[in-house]
């Protein structure tokens, strides 16, 4: 077993060598931040939630299985933390930046092309925000955080085939939604 693998490091943490959590933090903190940011669209909240994940890892380290998978276990903790947070806050009020975003673009010859691209991206982001929390979470896990379908399926308690079909449907919904916004 490679002693620097996530699983081996987490087993060391479980045994009390909590210094090893440093390396796991280096590997995962940005991914958790990305996941929370995708779900909350708030940087400060996302940082708090990342902190909570690592606190829970320490608190529940004894429950980590000797045959476990750290990525799956930790993302499951992250999902639960987000669920708790969402429950307390009920819903997110996505704050749209009202500043004219065209001004943020650099003054280049391709300004028009950039604006078109930004338009498309803006609509896609809007469409993402309009998805239900469950759907957004799935896209966030498999697309943005690159969690494998098999692991996502296990986390969600469904088959791998079901996950793939679900992702396909969400993609379709997103495309229809952002094309609608575009017209």
């Amino acid at each position, binding site marked *: 077993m490679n002693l620097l693998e996530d699983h081996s490091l987490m087993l060391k943490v479980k045994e009390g060598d909590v210094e090893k959590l440093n390396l796991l933090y280096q590997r995962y903190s940005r991914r958790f931040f990305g996941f929370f940011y995708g779900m909350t669209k708030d940087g400060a909240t996302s940082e708090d939630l990342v902190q909570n994940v690592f606190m829970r890892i320490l608190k529940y380290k004894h429950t980590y299985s000797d045959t476990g998978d750290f990525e799956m276990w930790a993302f499951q903790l992250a999902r639960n933390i987000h669920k708790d947070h969402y429950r307390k806050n009920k819903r997110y009020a996505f704050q749209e930046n009202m500043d004219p975003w065209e001004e943020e673009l650099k003054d280049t010859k391709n300004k028009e092309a950039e604006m078109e691209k930004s338009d498309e991206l803006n609509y*896609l982001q809007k469409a993402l925000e309009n998805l239900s929390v469950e759907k957004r979470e799935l896209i966030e896990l498999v697309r943005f955080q690159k969690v494998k*379908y098999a692991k996502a399926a296990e986390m969600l308690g469904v088959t791998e085939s079901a996950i793939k079909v679900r992702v396909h449907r969400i993609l379709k919904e997103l495309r229809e939604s952002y094309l609608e916004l575009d017209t």
Partner: protein
Amino acid sequence: MKKEKALELWQDKLAGEISENDEKALETFLQTNPELASECADLEQTWMLFDEIDRPEPSAQMDARFDGMLAAYQSAKKQRSAPFLDGIVSWLTRSWQVALASMVLGLFIGWWMLPSQNQTQSISQLSGEIQDMKKLMMLTLIERPKAQERIRAVNMVSDLPTADEKVIEALITTLNKDDNLNVRLASLEALLTYGKRPEVRGALVEALKVQNSAIILVAIADALVMIQEKSSVETMEQLRETVKDELVKDKLTESIESLSNI
């Protein structure tokens, strides 16, 4: 192949998890189902568009808070175990008979636990693992966007007993390509520790050709004199002809003189 199976394979393809055989089978299926092929192509475009969504980076406070949280956890753990240890110590020192008996017991345990060959091997294996971890951490941190973290990575090199090719390579790349002057200076300092190695000496001479900052050029010239790299004289002379900064010119003249007199 059924449509559902094709959709599954398409998702595999998007995630880069498809085998060569499955990909061929999928292509064949899509050729006979143009409608589905067009739908998949549209969805692929949406999937790819996600890559363009900008996500912010967390602030430096996030890492600092984690360090603080871990330190607090460790210190709380120590404090929790302290009263128990205090109790044992106070019991052992209550009278001289107990103290003497515990000393004899301690000596016996010490003799009994003298490290055997195997234990010595495990200790050296463990120490090797720790070095590997430090190295990995250094190589991870040096890629970070924050200059402070990159300096931390460069400084970690001094904790490594030896630096392998990867570490040296990372330091050389940092010296030549990092945007931040302080990070570049720190990597130069770290490289100097390995100034006897020919690849480091060669890299420092080459660095003279690519650096554009006067401070760095002066520091490299000093470093080359320090490690007495005579082969750098020619490069220094060429640089002296083209460089505009007077300070750098003077430093190069001074360094060329020092190296020529060795």
